[in-house]
């Protein structure tokens, strides 16, 4: 048995921060790719104008996972057509509503179909399908309700310094405003138990959903933990990804969303 360098946060530990860090003992499938039981995992892939990179992502995902849901968030390119060439569920937003909205659509669809473990996975190839098993292991075991991928516990290959700075500021912002201690607040690689996915209701349509998810984890008293993952940045993902200045917009959306309730 190996040890995962993740932190498990339990609601009971809130008043005892010195006990907040614990190690998760991993099962035999850790890091070994998809297992025979991967049919209970539903992988949700929100995609917007990802026609070029989606095929590669889906090819690698479909090797091990039968239940993949691609949510085309009103793309102008051939994202839906590309997805339909693979054995995946394809849902299409008729207009662009944002990544948060696409994630909630995928989660709702998977729950409706009886999913027990739900994984959110980026369409642009930044995440590794081989790490899904390791991510879902604490959820399957019942140790946590939500497993959050962390590139800062794992690896961030080719992470630009400006993005590193923004992500670190995001961590600080989350600690101050949401009172949640995590090392990576805006990582799209997460795993939810059915109970957690049913408890969550993502109302932030756009990028502020990541902070909203953390807020709701705390609000519902869900058990969560962080699992080291690898995020690979390339020139094209960095170019298409969120501008660092968008962080200000995320904060504004979050504040406005909280005011509206």
């Amino acid at each position, binding site marked *: 048995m190996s040890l995962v360098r993740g932190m498990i946060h339990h609601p009971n530990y809130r008043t005892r921060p010195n006990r907040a860090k614990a190690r998760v003992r991993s099962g035999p499938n850790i890091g070994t790719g998809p297992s025979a039981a991967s049919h209970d995992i539903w992988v949700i892939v929100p995609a917007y104008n990802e026609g070029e990179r989606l095929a590669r992502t889906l090819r690698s995902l479909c090797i091990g996972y039968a239940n993949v849901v691609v949510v085309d968030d009103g793309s102008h390119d051939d994202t839906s057509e590309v*997805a339909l*060439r693979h054995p*995946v569920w*394809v*849902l299409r937003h*008729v207009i662009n*509503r944002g990544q948060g909205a696409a994630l909630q659509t995928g989660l709702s*669809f998977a729950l409706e179909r009886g999913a027990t473990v739900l994984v959110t996975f980026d369409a642009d190839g930044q995440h590794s399908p081989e790490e899904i098993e390791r991510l879902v292991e604490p959820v399957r075991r019942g140790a946590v309700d939500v497993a959050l991928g962390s590139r800062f516990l794992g690896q961030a290959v080719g992470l630009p310094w400006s993005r590193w700075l923004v992500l670190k500021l995001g961590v600080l912002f989350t600690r101050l405003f949401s009172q949640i201690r995590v090392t990576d607040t805006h990582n799209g690689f997460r795993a939810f138990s059915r109970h957690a996915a049913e408890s969550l209701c993502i109302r932030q*349509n756009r990028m502020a959903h990541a902070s909203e998810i953390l807020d709701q984890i705390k609000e519902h008293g869900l058990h969560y933990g962080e699992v080291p993952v690898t995020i690979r940045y390339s020139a094209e993902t960095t170019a298409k990804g969120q501008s660092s200045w968008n962080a200000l917009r995320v904060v504004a959306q979050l504040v406005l969303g909280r*005011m509206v309730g």
Partner: protein
Amino acid sequence: MNLFQLLTLSVVTAVLAAECLALCRRSAGRKLRLLRIAVWSAAAAAIVDPGIPQAVAIRIGIGRGADLVLYMVVLAFLGGSLCFCSCFVRLERQLTEVVRHVAMQSARRGRQEDEG
């Protein structure tokens, strides 16, 4: 009473009358309508006697009636902006629900490339 007072007062009076009529006819949104009636009444009073804002300003320590009106306008603008933002966010959420419903109803299953 000068020409400006006559014109603005007639407009405000007409609006006030319409609000009062609507208040009598409909029961929905009573509180908001009463608030609007109070605002229009205050505006009418300030037009008829410009000394009223001045007196109120002196009483609450602002000093000048014009400053009082300016502060009230700024506060009303901020409140109105927040109100519109809230409405916009709610509409956005409703729109997302509709888009989600359509997407889930029209979900399609893809096929392997070799299945054609």
